[in-house]
């Protein structure tokens, strides 16, 4: 997606829950277009689903690029795992897009300029960040969901993200402590559970489209 005129990377792209409302579009010269490009996640279950949809868009875009331009020295097994993960993220993205229907946020423009897709270390390191962020995001969002069917859907996605996290960890450092969760799991044997206000700033460096969570609570 093209960015019209102004460099929107300089704008605050994600605003946290409870933060001052910021309508990014209103700051841009071309009102109509930018308002359409900006995305507010919405409220209630729709807001939670759009939040998940934004994260799945990010993950899908990442793995599409990874599979398109495999890093140097990639093994067959690595590529097949990464392609499988890509397909899962696309399936999650499309599932959420369908569930949201007309309430879905627009396609997000992503920015992977900090990722070196030729480097195994950079790609798998970024994958590790995305998967663990996804797990923590779904775990923390569960309590925000009111409809039991949406909770079930989120549940069937989050364990796949956790499986991805373990798979990526195994690619990075073999079948040791990290594959079982490593530092992502605390001394009580629990994964993290993060709120949107904690997750969005971590995803923000990778997303160009202004996304606001003004009503997500």
């Amino acid at each position, binding site marked *: 997606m093209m960015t019209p005129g102004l460099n929107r990377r300089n704008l605050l792209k994600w605003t946290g829950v409870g933060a001052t409302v910021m309508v990014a579009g209103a700051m841009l010269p071309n009102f109509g277009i930018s308002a359409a490009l900006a995305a507010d996640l919405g409220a209630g279950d729709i807001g939670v689903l759009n939040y998940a949809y934004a994260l799945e868009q990010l993950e899908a875009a990442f793995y599409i690029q990874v599979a398109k331009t495999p890093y140097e020295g990639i093994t067959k097994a690595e590529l097949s795992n990464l392609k*499988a993960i890509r397909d899962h993220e696309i399936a999650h993205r499309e599932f959420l897009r369908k569930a949201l229907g007309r309430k879905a946020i627009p396609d997000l423009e992503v920015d992977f300029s900090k990722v070196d897709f030729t480097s195994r270390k950079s790609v798998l390191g970024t994958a590790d960040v995305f998967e663990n962020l996804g797990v923590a995001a779904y775990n923390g969002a569960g309590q925000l969901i009111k409809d039991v069917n949406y909770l079930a859907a989120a*549940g069937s996605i989050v364990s796949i993200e*956790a499986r*991805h996290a*373990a798979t990526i960890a195994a690619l990075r450092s073999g*079948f*040791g402590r990290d594959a079982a969760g490593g530092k992502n799991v605390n001394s009580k044997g*629990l*994964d993290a559970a993060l709120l949107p206000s904690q997750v969005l700033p971590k995803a923000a460096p990778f997303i160009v489209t202004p996304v606001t969570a003004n009503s997500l609570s």
Partner: protein
Amino acid sequence: MNNQEDFILDAIDPEVAEHIDAGRRSLFTRYAVPVAALGSAPLIIAASAQAAFAAGGLPKQVVDVLNFALTLEYLEAAFYKQANGSSGLIPQKYRQLFRTIGAHETAHVALLKGALGSAAVKAPAVDFTAGGKYADVFSNFETFVAVSATFEDLGVAAYKGQAGNLIGTPVLTTALQIHSVEARHAAAVRPLAGKAGFDGAFDKPKTKAQVLAAATPFLA
């Protein structure tokens, strides 16, 4: 005095607890907690949790779910304890993996027992050979990882199947935090049993009856 609510509260990120609290006013109505008298959100969630959990214990539905989960965690914890203590079973390069998994399962048992207090079920008698079907489970690594992968996938499906019964309770987040750890375990063990870490883009839940049917052969 029983401090079961502390286990649940400790397990929840304070910010999450605060947030949950803001969205769960119904808890207050249900348990008639005098929220106006309390100053901070963490205190409020503590009070609502106390109302929900103390004096006679947790709501029956939640007790049932947690005892069901505890039974599976007992099974897993005992399984890895025995495996990690079986010399010659686990190759050196996988020992850290199974030690970590075992430590997580033991932690889950402690967490659930703590949450349930006197309502906790006792550890079941186990038979990891499943009546002789897996006779070499603690001497043959191949058999061991096959059973391990089965337990982990079962755990994932079991927690997933119970999430709906926990909706609207502070226990849900804790259960989800265990659920994803079981999924990590499953994906770490499955490749050692010759499978991909995952099976499709969406994991399916199992009902309590389905889980018990799968676990029963391992209960003595």
